[in-house]
């Protein structure tokens, strides 16, 4: 996984609450077999008019936000479907960090698996960032995961909270499957000890199952 340490980038504002993952990557793009290539279809229905013509009213299509890599968002960002295609799209589009007051749980988890930092700030700071982004074209923010700060170099500087374990994984770009596999003896011991009732941990009981098609 790509590590996240410190990132400075152009900020794009997504001024809607409850942006769901269906909007990020709509259903028709869930049929691909890869983790790549979803940047082109990110926010597809909002972003394109028929014939894939860019919708000039959509915020990411505005020239001033071209090349943005920090996404400023509203509450409960990423609600709905568990599809990891959503953070794949966010990352593939070029976003490295998201700043929002809150996230839906599954999306939040999925971001960390993809080297994207979803950081949380209180509503009033988010409001101020929306105002600053709107006011100055080319508005950039520096997100420093090590020091847990986000700053614009023009008077806005805040620290943010993040779980220390998630921070370490993201800083080092750790492969969490690799981490878990280091604990194989624990897993094997658990499997031996089993659950309170042996029937529960045994292979699925197929005595009464007949797979007649």
């Amino acid at each position, binding site marked *: 996984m790509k590590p996240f340490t410190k990132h400075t980038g152009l900020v794009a504002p997504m001024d809607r609450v409850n942006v769901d993952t269906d909007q990020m990557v709509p259903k028709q793009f869930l049929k691909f077999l890869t983790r790549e290539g979803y940047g082109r279809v990110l926010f597809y229905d909002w972003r394109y008019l028929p014939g894939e013509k860019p919708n000039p009213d959509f915020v990411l299509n505005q020239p001033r936000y071209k090349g943005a890599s920090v996404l400023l968002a509203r509450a409960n960002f990423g609600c709905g479907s568990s599809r990891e295609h959503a953070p794949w799209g966010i990352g593939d589009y070029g976003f490295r960090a998201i700043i929002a007051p809150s996230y839906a749980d599954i999306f939040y988890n999925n971001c960390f698996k993809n080297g994207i930092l979803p950081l949380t700030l209180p509503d009033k700071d988010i409001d101020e960032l929306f105002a600053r982004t709107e006011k100055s074209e080319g508005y950039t923010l520096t997100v420093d995961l090590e020091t847990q700060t986000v700053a614009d170099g023009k008077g806005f500087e805040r620290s943010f909270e993040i779980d220390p374990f998630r921070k370490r994984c993201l800083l080092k770009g750790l492969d*969490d499957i690799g981490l878990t596999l280091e604990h194989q003896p624990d897993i094997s011991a658990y*499997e031996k000890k089993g659950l309170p009732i042996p029937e529960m941990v045994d292979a699925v009981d197929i005595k009464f199952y007949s797979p007649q098609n």
Partner: protein
Amino acid sequence: MPALTLYEKIWNAHVVREVPGQPSLIYIDRHLIHEGTSPQAFAGLKAAGRKVRRPELTFAVMDHSVSTKNRELPVLDADAAGQFEALAKNCRESGVRLFDMHSRNQGIVHIIGPELGITQPGFTIVCGDSHTSTHGAMGALAFGIGTSEIEHVLATQCLSQFKSKTTRIEVKGKLGAGLASKDIILAIIGKLGIAGGNGHVFEYTGDAIRALSMEARMTICNMSIEAGARAGMVAPDEVTFAYLEGKPFVPRGKDFQRLVEHWKTLPSDPGAKFDETVELDAAKLAPQVTWGTNPGMVTDVTARVPDPGSFANDVDRQAAERALVYMDLKAGTPITDIYLDRVFIGSCTNSRLEDLRTAAKAVAGKHVAKSLKQALVVPGSRRVKTQAEAEGLDKIFRDAGFEWRDAGCSMCIGMNDDVLQPHERCASTSNRNFEGRQGKDGRTHLVSPLMAAAAAIEGHFVDVRHWRNGTGN
């Protein structure tokens, strides 16, 4: 011994490794996969030279992209065909049991888990699908995961998890005639909001929940995620045990009795502490209908489309304004004046036998409104379909002008060709009314199966409590 919740008991029984300040390593008893979110996980596994640790604990099914028409015909959608081939190949190579689209056990992953007895009380169950919360109705801890986590479970049979907070949702009273568990959960989501359960696992308790069948409980747990809760649970009881006895993957005889004794230890202890408690009176509920673009935008069938100006804060007001534009609704319109283009009865929320029986009873001897373009019934599984046909429900639906289809996710997500056309309005028994969910620019109203059936006959929403003398006849 401290008093523990159902959630804590299951959690404690599954901790493989616990280190302060880190997520715990939790053992996963059953892993369900489908063609939509698993191919990248298998590809990742292969790229890293890793194997599936416990293929016999993983179950695969084709549901999201399958056609609900004739499955004997070739799959014309090349992308969908690619998904099916990938799933079949991955299962073959790793030894994972697959219910392919031709299996008599095929169906929506959250329908077949319980009906085959793969889902059992006390289990940890995950699936790359947010509606995995459904399985919690059995007293399991079940939640949706992303593809990276699917890969993690395939490789290790474990998941790294932080412990959730818990909310007890007590539903008191007796549900009135014409109402369903769908109305309970829609009312809960309306009350809590769609982020109200973030970071929490719900446990549903109270007389109204105890009085529900297993299938009705599944509808409630299914939509826990629509309030932001990754998991929803109902403590197992006699209803649960009776449901499970004799299911294909459930042990029988003495083994079953031993399991039941264990399952009886699972319910939350008296005095167990929840982080939050919410109460709802089922007796006061009216049938629910969503009017907006998320499941929390919901109201009574007797109400009117709300005025955005009536919302207390700017955020809700703006969201309501945008939703009304998308839904092409005017504030103040009676819900019963909303006319429909299509009706969809199906999805992992409401496509079980009881749902179909209820809907069939309501439409028997009647005909769908002429103004309707389509009324669709999609059974949740082939087992449901077979049983429904044995009971003659398919004939009732067909005679009433409904289309009767094969099992799959269908128009809930529209990954096959069951989709709304732009600007069409649909009464749907599914779980999400997000923009574009059922088709680009499509407009979704979430309702119970009975409400959907009645709306199909009349062409617009009706209060089923007073519809044709409240009996549907």
